């Protein structure tokens, strides 16, 4: 076992400084991802900066929207009446993630930054460009049933596993971060990078940059939002395909639409082409079918995961009908 330094600072500035000072430091929140990766030898940090003593947990109502502290546990997000009442897609997505035990531990910040469940990434001895840049992608010619049909590259086709991130994307959420020199507000839509030739870089965040909170703005479409997740069993499994949609419908016409997909791309995926079909239309069967097809127009499935293309269409058909129902 490599020497490991464990630190538990109680203020944000100290946590950031401790992480920035060591290029192999890793922040530890709920630990549900980090501890597993550590045990499997996928991560080998020299320093763990445990952020659980920082005062950044809890949900606050702010400017009509919500500010969710980065350390808020998923179970507390799902239980919050304002989340359930005004941002239903997020409540659904959180409850569809993992198990009760894990939701009690996992934090909102960690959920956004959790690593892919690609089996090759999690096995420290097989080639994987994300884990060991330049070694190759084992999934492209190997097992890729669960891999990306959108946004992948010839270096990596792993998918982002987070359910909450998909809902946060559809709800225009913004991530507040802090580094030693700057604070930033990054829309979730801008947070994630596509793999391209550098799949090891997954987000815009710099080393040591701390997510302090995730903010949900008050919007005209959040209240009519929902999340649907299809998995291989009814509970406690990652998504094959999931979708979050949010709609502002007035006088029978869709004014604004957000469509985000999970389980299909290396990042939570914004289906802008589907949004464009919905905007200005009436919610008819034809509109839904056109939007669902638009979402996968650019899909590039591989041998084993072509089923995801049809599954996206069906998931979107159902979730749009659900969100669109009732005026």
């Amino acid at each position, binding site marked *: *076992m*490599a*020497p*490991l*330094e*464990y*630190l*538990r*600072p*109680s203020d944000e500035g100290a946590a950031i400084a*401790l992480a920035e000072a060591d290029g192999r430091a890793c922040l*530890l929140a*709920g*630990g*549900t991802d980090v*501890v*597993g990766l*550590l*045990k499997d030898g996928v991560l080998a940090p020299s320093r*763990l900066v*445990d952020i*659980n*003593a920082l005062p950044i947990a809890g949900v606050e109502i702010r400017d009509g929207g919500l500010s969710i502290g980065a350390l808020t546990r998923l179970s507390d997000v799902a239980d919050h009446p304002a989340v359930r009442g005004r941002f239903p897609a997020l409540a659904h997505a959180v409850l569809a993630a*993992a*198990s*009760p*035990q*894990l939701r*009690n*531990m996992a934090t909102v910040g960690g959920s956004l930054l959790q690593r892919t469940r690609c089996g090759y990434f999690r096995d420290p001895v097989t080639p994987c460009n994300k884990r060991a840049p330049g070694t190759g992608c084992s999934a492209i010619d190997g097992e890729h049933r669960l891999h990306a049909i959108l946004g992948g590259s010839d270096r990596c086709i792993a998918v982002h596993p987070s359910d909450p991130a998909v809902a946060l994307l559809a709800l225009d959420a913004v991530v507040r971060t802090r580094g030693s020199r700057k604070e930033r507000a990054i829309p979730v839509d801008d947070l994630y990078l596509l793999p391209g030739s550098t799949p090891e870089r997954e987000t815009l965040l710099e080393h040591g940059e701390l997510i302090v909170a995730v903010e949900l703005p008050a919007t005209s479409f959040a209240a009519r939002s929902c999340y649907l997740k299809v998995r291989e069993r009814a*509970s*406690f499994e990652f998504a094959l395909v999931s979708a979050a949609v949010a709609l502002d419908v007035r006088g029978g016409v869709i004014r604004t639409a957000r469509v985000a997909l999970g389980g299909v791309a290396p990042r939570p995926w914004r289906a802008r082409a589907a949004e464009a079909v919905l905007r200005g239309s009436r919610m008819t069967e034809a509109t839904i079918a056109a939007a669902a097809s638009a979402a996968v127009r650019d899909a590039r499935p591989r041998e084993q995961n072509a089923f995801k293309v049809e599954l996206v269409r069906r998931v979107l058909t159902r979730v749009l009908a659900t969100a669109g129902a009732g005026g």
Partner: protein
Amino acid sequence: MTGNHPLAAESETYELSVNGRREQVKAAWLGESLLAVLRERLGLPGAKNACEQGECGSCSVFVDGVLVCSCCVLAADAVDAEVTTVEGLADGDALTDVQQSFLDAGAVQCGFCTPGLVVAVHDLLDRNPDPGDLEVREAISGNLCRCTGYGRILAAVEAVRDQRGRRSRP
């Protein structure tokens, strides 16, 4: 554990509070999970070790009253917390109502999943004394059992729910 000094591997000593007792953990690697420390260093084998990845729930314990998978908790992170394992649920040799009900309903076959399920069911019924069938299923969805097919486990949970309900009615 606070402090900014580097700590070498295999050399750290710290204290955990488990089932109401202070326990010394000597010369531990700081990357060890709470599950590993409970089982290997403190002689508490009730929390089981199967997947080590949060997938099976057999390692379920309470940390400050919150149900967690101890395989995913860093032991060092539990230093200021109160840990309760399945060994700490019952009073002496008496069984808890949940434990007794598992036996009565035949919900135990190989028994590997049983400690984790008992802890999870205590958590459920202490928070929600009258859960519906779907709530029960969701509450134990993080606990995998490869023997029973769950039927008798669900029956055991229902029996405790009904028993506690009768007791609390005037």
